């Protein structure tokens, strides 16, 4: 019996994959990322003359100065949206203490010596705490730097402190950001697919987030 072969568009997650991030979670992540990167690049331009060319490639210094605080507010909004969305997943669990103590095993790829982790591992939770601090400190200091002309003369002395805090907080967040991007793109294969297309392989789930994998597959079995 001859069969007529034809292809149809896949609409479901492939059966050998599991859903990790919903569409809205990915939109939120990339809104945060895009606004953060813009502010990071223009911020570096304002921070050091050796990086001022970054302001030129995004439209020039005055344009960068105009958009930096506005997109900065966008970053803060997107970050808090994400933080609230993932508030249960980024809460520390008892296993995290041991994971933090044994973080060297994570660095040297001896993951079997680490306690099992939930939807986010302890390192990711530390990253979230760091970015939370940045998302609080940067707008607070940034607001003063946005409108110094409304600062009365008597409190002008805070301006240099605020400028320092803003830059220092941004630099610390850059450090976290570098690790985050390096981990996501280079160290944990499958993560890029997870945050762009939304799904991961079962092996990925079992290896990196076993507690989460168990929970997700239990729900799967109940269906």
């Amino acid at each position, binding site marked *: 019996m001859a069969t007529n072969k034809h292809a149809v568009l896949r609409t479901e997650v492939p059966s050998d994959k599991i859903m990790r991030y919903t569409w809205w979670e990915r939109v939120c992540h990339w809104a945060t990322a895009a606004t953060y990167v813009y502010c990071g690049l223009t911020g570096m331009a304002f921070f050091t003359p050796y990086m001022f060319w970054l302001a030129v490639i995004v439209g020039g210094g005055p344009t960068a100065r105009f958009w930096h605080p506005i997109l900065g507010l966008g970053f803060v909004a997107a970050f808090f949206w994400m933080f609230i969305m993932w508030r249960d997943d980024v809460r520390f669990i008892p296993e995290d203490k041991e994971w933090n103590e044994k973080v060297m095993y994570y660095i040297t790829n001896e993951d079997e010596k680490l306690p099992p982790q939930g939807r986010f591992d302890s390192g990711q939770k530390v990253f979230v705490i760091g970015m939370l601090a940045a998302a609080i400190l940067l707008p607070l200091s940034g607001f003063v730097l946005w409108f110094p*002309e409304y600062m009365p003369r008597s409190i002008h002395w805070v*301006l240099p402190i605020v400028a*320092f805090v803003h830059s220092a907080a941004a630099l610390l967040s850059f450090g976290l950001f*570098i690790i985050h991007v390096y981990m996501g793109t280079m160290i944990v294969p499958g993560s890029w697919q997870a945050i762009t297309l939304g799904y991961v392989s079962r092996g990925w789930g079992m290896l990196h987030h076993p507690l989460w994998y168990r929970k997700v597959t239990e729900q799967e079995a109940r269906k």
Partner: protein
Amino acid sequence: MPKQLQIKAISGHAGPAPGKDASRDYDVCKLIDVTTCIGCKACEVACLEWNGYQFRETTFNNTYQTMPDTAWNYWNLIRFNEHTNPDGTFQWLMRKDGCMHCEEPGCLKACPAEGAIVQYANGIVDFNQANCIGCQYCVTGCPFNIPKFNPETKKVFKCTLCSDRVSNGLEPACIKSCPTGCLHFGSKDDMKELAEKRAAQLREHTAHKNAGVYDPQGVGGTHVMYVLHDIEHPEAYGGLPKNPSIAAFTQLWKGPLKWVGGSSLILGLIAAVVHFLRWGPKEAEIREDQIPPSSEEATHGN
């Protein structure tokens, strides 16, 4: 600097031409002798006229001060203070407020935009609005609260010490307009000598025993100096800071934070590359153990 355009004599002018023999080679300086200022505001008008600004809106606050503060288009303001002396007598203090043209300018140190602030060899600190990005870091860096922001053009402005006039051998417009001779212009050395002479004269011949010259060393000295009745209390003259300097946090921000922060980030990037080459990615691979798999997990591999 072209000397040929320096005025030597003026026809029909009572007394010597202003700044006749002053050397104008390098290190220009404006000297403001507040003890002979009568608060006529001729310098304010001259500043507006030369720089092409209209007189701006103001509010009357029952003093002899033209407006509450300097502005982006009002760089020169005679600050007025009715000061009560410890012995109960009072004094009207008039101080011509404007850019001090610091030898170590805090605005220039804080500015991130290439070419927006320049310091000339003669000491003038000038803003170039074409390169200004409107970030107002200069406002955070200035210990004298001088740079002022124009919200419409998003550029910052301040006194230029008439760099356009000075570069052509002329004195600043305010100097030219002063009717009492309280404003002087010349080389820093000449102005220092003149200022010290005047301060000594005040100490010896008047009741102002604390008269002195305001040339704050915290900012490396300034190219605008004052002779004050009381050098111990500059704050009385409309908030002139006693020991101005570039704020410690501005120094930290533009110094250690830059190189510590920058080198840490570069080291971080190098560490990432080294880590990748040594340990590389964490590949997931599903293996079957002795225990038979209970679900379809094992069949659907990585």
